[in-house]
């Protein structure tokens, strides 16, 4: 009887401590914790390839499409390597973009221009610029390393019927186009469901929503659809991801300057 009470008390005490522990961690620590957990849950995917259709729409509702293939290689201890081959529109077919993201410091980027068979190293200072005329900036599409932001947990909120953490993150790089981003992570799987982007004047610039999440290798979640709306211009860009394949056995050789030309 005694032991039972003691055990019960001990349990109560532990849960109290846990609650107290949460209460004691600052919103900054809490935000970082959530970002680390989200990152940890996506670690170990190895590599992936997917087809991507980009639908660019202006405020009059006129749209144009781009199609590309995106390969990703997870690099342990650093940012991912990404290789993008363009297929449509046809005049840019064969153009390719290679990016080595780094946790700290500027990324390395190369562009392949098929008309001249030329590989050109380009500046990665363009991170806040639009990626191929879309509403996605380079920094929105590059791999989201924990170290690229500082964090602050804001509140819990139900978004689209899912319990979420709402976390603000502040880009470390002064070249970023944003003062802050507000991210809705679902508590179940730590997936980003929505991001609000605030421009350098701290005005709401864009909102990105992630739709139709699918799970791969019984672990990694990828949204089939990403919709970015620019509130200031009325333009939008939808990304439609198709044919995700994981575990391709890619190596660094599939992500070097030669591979810009060698595959499509």
């Amino acid at each position, binding site marked *: 009887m005694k032991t039972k009470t003691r055990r019960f008390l001990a349990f109560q005490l532990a849960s109290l401590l846990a609650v107290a522990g949460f209460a004691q961690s600052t919103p900054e620590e809490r935000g970082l914790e959530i970002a680390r957990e989200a990152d940890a849950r996506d670690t170990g995917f190895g590599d992936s390839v997917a087809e991507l259709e980009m639908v660019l729409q202006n405020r009059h509702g006129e749209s144009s499409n781009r199609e590309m293939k995106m390969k990703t290689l997870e690099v342990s201890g650093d940012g991912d390597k990404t290789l993008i081959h363009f297929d449509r529109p*046809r*005049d840019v077919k064969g153009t390719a973009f290679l990016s080595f993201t780094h946790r700290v410091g500027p990324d390395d980027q190369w562009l392949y221009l098929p008309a001249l068979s030329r590989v050109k190293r380009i500046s990665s200072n363009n991170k*806040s610029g639009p990626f191929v*005329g879309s509403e996605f900036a380079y920094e929105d599409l590059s791999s989201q390393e924990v170290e690229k932001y500082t964090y602050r947990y804001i509140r819990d909120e139900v978004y689209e019927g899912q319990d979420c953490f709402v976390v603000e993150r502040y880009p470390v790089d002064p070249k970023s186009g944003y003062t802050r981003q507000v991210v809705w992570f679902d508590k179940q799987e730590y997936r980003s469901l929505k991001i609000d982007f605030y421009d350098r004047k701290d005005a709401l610039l864009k909102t990105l929503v992630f739709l139709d999440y699918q799970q791969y290798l019984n672990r990694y979640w990828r949204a089939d659809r990403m919709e970015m709306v620019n509130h200031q211009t009325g333009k939008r860009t939808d990304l439609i991801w198709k044919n995700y394949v994981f575990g391709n056995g890619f190596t660094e050789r599939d992500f070097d300057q030669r591979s810009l030309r060698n595959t499509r």
Partner: protein
Amino acid sequence: MWRAGLALALAPFAAQAAEWSGYIAGEGRIFEDRPLHAGQDSDPSGALLFEPEFFHEWEKPELLFEFSPFLRLDSQDEERELFDIRELSLLWVNGNWETRIGISKVFWGVAESQHLVDTINQTDLAANPDGEDKLGQPMVHFVYVSDFGDFGLFLLPGFRERAFPGVEGRLRGSLAVDTDNPIYESSGEDERLDLALRWKHYIGDVDIGLHYFRGTNREPGLVLQSGDGGTPVLRPYYELMDQVGLDLQLTKGGWLWKLEAIARDSASDRYSAMVGGFEYTLYALGGSALDLGLLGEVHLDSRGRSAPVPFNRDVFVGGRLTWNDEADTSLIAGAFVDADNGSTNVRLEFERRLGRFYKLEVELQKPLGIEEEDPLYPLRRDSYLQMTLSRYW
């Protein structure tokens, strides 16, 4: 005729859902002034360009087949008419080894205003005076990829002659080059086997390349001779040469610092030349989506004023505007200024996609105050506007 043959030859591939793409384009050129040289046509000229591309990839073994013929018909200058195989090659990637066999195109270099170290492929000077159009080169190309960079060996059987504008064409010297009667130093003429070595690497912010080339100089000397009936003709003279070269780029923030240098040795000449400069990009100009790239490059040639090339002691200043819009609109404009005599040549290139399948390109070249001693003097009246509309598929 050849097109029908092509379709037949490639029919088995098509069944495997292989990929065809390409473009057909109409090009028109208008010159501001009447021509300067005898025989030149003063009317606007038109050209039709056709370049289909076939591509197929296999995964195991890792093979890549590319085929890209090119056809150009011209309303004015028969020397501008060309059928070329730009690409007909098979690439085999085997781990760290790559082998490419066939006709292909290779680009070396980092500079924008001149491609000094870009040696392998012959320039199609009839196509455009900017020298960016190249002819397909037969090659066997081995590459070994290592942690110390990519080591390449080129065996280049078969030499391609440079294409020059003909008698009726503009953008030439006072005499048209007699491309039917080239002179070769090598007894093998255009069947000599040329050789090149290439090393390419990147370390952090630095991209570096070195090369050695031994073979027939792609850039001919021009020899004045009297032809039939004593009329003077200009014959291209293709000399043998040894060349070493360097290309280097430092990428720091918004700055690209660039350097290309070569040293050439041949029976008639021994010299070195370089082009170096920067490209600085101002992103999101005035809060818009526009980027403005500022370009500055310096051209030097150890032969100084006596160099038989336009880029002996010249400066290039220019800018590149990129709209970052859905039509991929861009404008590049610049001026080549001779530091010795002030002769200036202004060039402008604009492009924009129209709808999903069309692209419009506008090009303008205007020589300003070309001095008599400048190699561009014979082209001083060849200010032109060119418009190209391409349909891609």
